[in-house]
């Protein structure tokens, strides 16, 4: 089987990440998976509206904007799923009565947008130095009509797919996924194959994230030059 862009079924697209590109936010990151590109800006901890104020932890707000048009119902669903993921991840009890706002803007959509959004949000939170349990990485798998499982599908493959699975994992060896989103018709066997493929792909994503963070920290603390 050949994929439209001649990748292997288990091969993810080129990763790219740039931290701190936005000057007015507290932390920002641009994360790209091939032609899919997502920009995320984080404010926090900042003042919170009385209505949203939590006495024992920070309130976490996620805003997801698609590349074209106004947010649809699907985008609102992504928003709430991403919020739930990061509510588990952020040590909100360290900053009670504050707000952590995560703004996600899709710049270019070519499949696996949700995975890119989660990766961008993680990197932006790290850039903003919001206290986190750990970092999460996400990957998407698609089950094609033929039953073949491919990782990191492009938009063309997403349109032909029978089901799409996005999973996110923390950078810890144990534990269940931090985020699962499955759409379409699939068998348990297909799901398990997607699970395994996502898990191995996320390892690569997390290793990439680590090196991106390390180079940012080295630059700031002038480690490379002294």
């Amino acid at each position: 089987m050949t994929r439209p862009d001649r990748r292997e079924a288990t091969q993810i697209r080129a990763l790219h990440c740039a931290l701190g590109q936005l000057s007015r936010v507290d932390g920002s990151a641009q994360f790209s998976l091939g032609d899919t590109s997502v920009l995320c800006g984080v404010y926090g901890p900042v003042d919170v509206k009385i209505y949203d104020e939590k006495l024992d932890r920070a309130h976490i707000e996620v805003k997801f904007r698609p590349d074209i048009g106004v947010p649809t119902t699907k985008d609102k669903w992504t928003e709430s799923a991403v919020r739930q993921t990061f509510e588990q991840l952020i040590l909100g009890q360290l900053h009670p009565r504050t707000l952590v706002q995560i703004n996600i803007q899709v710049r270019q959509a070519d499949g696996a947008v949700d995975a890119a959004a989660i990766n961008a949000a993680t990197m932006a939170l790290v850039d903003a130095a919001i206290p986190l349990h750990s970092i999460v990485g996400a990957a998407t798998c698609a089950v094609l009509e033929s039953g073949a499982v491919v990782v990191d599908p492009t938009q063309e493959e997403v349109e032909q797919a029978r089901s799409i699975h996005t999973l996110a994992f923390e950078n810890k060896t144990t534990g269940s996924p931090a985020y699962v989103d499955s759409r379409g018709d699939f068998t348990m066997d297909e799901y398990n194959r997607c699970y395994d493929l996502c898990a191995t792909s996320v390892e690569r994503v997390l290793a990439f994230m680590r090196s991106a963070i390390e180079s940012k920290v080295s630059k700031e603390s002038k480690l490379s030059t002294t």
Partner: protein
Amino acid sequence: MTDVRVVIPGDIIDTTISAEDDGAETAVLRLGPGLAQVGEEISASAAGVLHNKEETHQWWVVSNRRRYVAAEGEPVVGVVVGRHGEGYRVDIGSAQDALLPLLAFEGATRRNKPNLTIGAVVYARVVVANSVMDPEIECYNSNTGKSEGYGELTGGFMFKCSLGLARHLISAKAPVLNALGAQIPFETAVGVNGRVWVNTESPETTVLVVNAIKNSEYLTVKQCKQMVRELLDKR
């Protein structure tokens, strides 16, 4: 500290206290910013450079950020945003505005209080900072009653920078301030909340100093001196 270790959130840190110290009265593990206890293990919660002091079993992570979280005893530069009966509300860049009591100035009494206008810039010290209360600041040392350099900053120019750069500037070894100070006279007040106030005799020189400080963030000592020299030559 010889080996430099960069940690990212979720990294498990081995803080085991060596056997000979174990059981001694000093063998208490002290965790600073960027570290959290998860179950039995110590894990990093922020990305940065890991530091530790062997003798006192202190561990902390130095990371850069842009948003200030108030901590007791830190000097900050703030802007007065409001006034009410017993004090001023001052924006110091943290989630909540800080309270500056009217009597927290050198020589202030109920009859003789300072009169700050909205928009005034003040240099103050954080005296109350915890997660459940709004921060409180004061413009004098309450033990001695002296201002010790704190108070309203008149004239000059205030700008924002990252907290890492502000901490670096205040550490007294900042090459950019030394290089500038050797050539031109200027006044500066650095707040660890990422706000820096600069005053010189002319606006042109103020702009030069501000640009030099902003440029210095990622430069080495040598590059810093070079950059300052180039800016002064262009004047």
